[in-house]
């Protein structure tokens, strides 16, 4: 298939010999391979620089570090990162799957694409705008709900008081994150749901299934790997999201599960954004080291996703 297969037969006339055309091939192939290798080098550089800059913070004496012992410093933020993302996923996943079903199986056919585009618009909104919206619009709207939750369900640790006066709590941040990852998960689910083989859907309907039974019997099992990888994609985004959390949350360096108070565990990404402009010397190293922790967390999520999807693929038998 490749041009290389045009070899010179022994004693062939010059017309079949390698000419300048093949030089073009060599150069072009060299450039494209080189670009691919550049990406590998770039990624290696990202890893090396991050690790290299983190080492001083990881090896230095706790007393010399501007933010104190590294692991004690990063723990609340790591917790906050995972906690906020988990809360966001709690809202976003069922909503996204539902919306994707609505867009593929319930909405009138003529408007499906327009509705899909409307949801996609959410993905296009820059995170700093979500931050503004979170503080100004969402937080005040959430506060009455928080008061109500605390009043009637305050005995559950999640809803313990005192209720934040601004509404800028981790629950609000999680809602903003949910809105941000929702279009990502929806897009992925929508794609796999539309790919459900018509044959399987008709098989279910012909057995006398209602639309919902057809979805449970044919659409959801078929789309499961897609749903999982969509969720992981969304989770990756939620873990790494910086500005929306940095702006919405009134942060603290604590580990707790209170959703409504003004002392909330901050996330790693948001903490970097807030602390970086003022950091110097070892402080910079320390913040970069927290970034490395975040990178490792997101990497782990990504790997899990790939593993899950690869494993499910053998079962799905999609043809």
């Amino acid at each position, binding site marked *: 298939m490749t041009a290389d297969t045009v070899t010179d037969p022994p004693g062939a006339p010059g017309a079949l010999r390698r000419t300048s055309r093949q030089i073009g091939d060599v150069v072009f192939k060299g450039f494209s391979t080189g670009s691919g290798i550049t990406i590998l080098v770039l990624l290696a550089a990202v890893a090396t620089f991050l690790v290299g800059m983190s080492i001083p913070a990881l090896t230095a004496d706790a007393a010399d570090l501007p933010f104190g012992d590294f692991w004690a410093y990063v723990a609340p933020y790591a917790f906050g990162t995972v906690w906020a993302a988990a809360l966001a996923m709690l809202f976003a996943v069922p909503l996204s799957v539902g919306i994707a079903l609505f867009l593929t199986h319930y909405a009138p056919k003529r408007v499906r694409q327009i509705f899909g585009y409307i949801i996609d618009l959410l993905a296009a909104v820059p995170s700093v705008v979500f931050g503004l919206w979170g503080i100004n619009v969402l937080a005040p709207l959430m506060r009455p709900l928080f008061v109500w939750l605390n009043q009637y369900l305050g005995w559950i640790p999640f809803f313990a008081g005192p209720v934040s006066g601004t509404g800028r709590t981790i629950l609000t941040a999680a809602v903003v994150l949910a809105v941000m990852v929702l279009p990502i998960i929806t897009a992925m689910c929508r794609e796999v749901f539309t790919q459900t083989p018509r044959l399987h859907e*008709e098989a279910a309907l*012909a057995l006398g299934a209602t639309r919902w039974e057809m979805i449970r019997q044919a659409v959801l099992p078929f789309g499961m790997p897609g749903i999982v990888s969509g969720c992981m994609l969304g989770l990756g985004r939620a873990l790494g999201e910086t500005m929306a959390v940095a702006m919405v949350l009134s942060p603290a360096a604590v580990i707790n599960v209170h959703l409504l108070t003004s002392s909330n565990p901050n996330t790693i990404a948001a903490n970097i954004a807030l602390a970086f402009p003022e950091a110097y010397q070892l402080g910079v190293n320390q913040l970069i080291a927290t970034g490395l922790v975040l990178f490792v967390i997101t990497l782990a999520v990504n790997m899990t996703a790939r593993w899950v999807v690869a494993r499910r693929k053998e*079962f799905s*038998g999609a043809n």
Partner: protein
Amino acid sequence: MSKRIEIKDLDIYYGKFHAVSGVNMTIQPRSVTAFIGSSGCGKSTVLRSINRMHEVIDGAYSTGQVLLDGVDLYGPGVDPVRVRRQVGMVFQRPNPFPTMSIRENVLAGVRLNNSKVTRPQAEEIVEKSLQAANLWKEVKDRLDRPGSGLSGGQQQRLCIARAIAIAPDVVLMDEPCSALDPISTLAIEDLIHQLKEEYTVVIVTHNMQQAARVSDQTAFFNLKEQGKPGELIEVASTEKIFHNPDQKATEDYITGRFG
């Protein structure tokens, strides 16, 4: 458990597209009726209208009547879900649910209609349906393996088992052998012969020898001319259609001078 089908003045539309016009025919219980005709003449559409599967396509509707032992499938208050429960269907390409085992595939329809099937009952249904589909011997040792691991012919028989597990009155088959090799085709044709002992079978086929081999009655569909809706040209005993048809168009089609 077998019912008579009467089709009266049936017209089927997909939105503005008039697919089939003016179909009238009667299908006797415990018989096999074959629908033949060139591609796009509406025979599959008519077949699907017998269990309202054509309505799956947005904008599809029909006028006229399809009666199942005198009960109009399109009457007021009729629930298409119930219709499909009584009129089973087998598709062009085998379509077992890929995420289910062989056993679950057979039980798929049963579980929808009755969530409280006991284990022994379920086992009985599985065995009976697979026996009836001539598949039991081949799969009885691997009921828990995925249905998609079977060969094409076995998959199609699994789909037939799945369709008859809910004890329908009618079994519709939409070119059930078009994706199969000759040996699997033969197995399915044998099966169709057995099925008519208990069910009313309607089959769409492109293969005229197949129609001649399996059916008691044959209906020939055709387009009057390009761009016009499909029509039922002639319906009669298979013997008559193949040897002494009334219509010239039928004779042309049978003898291969057409389409």
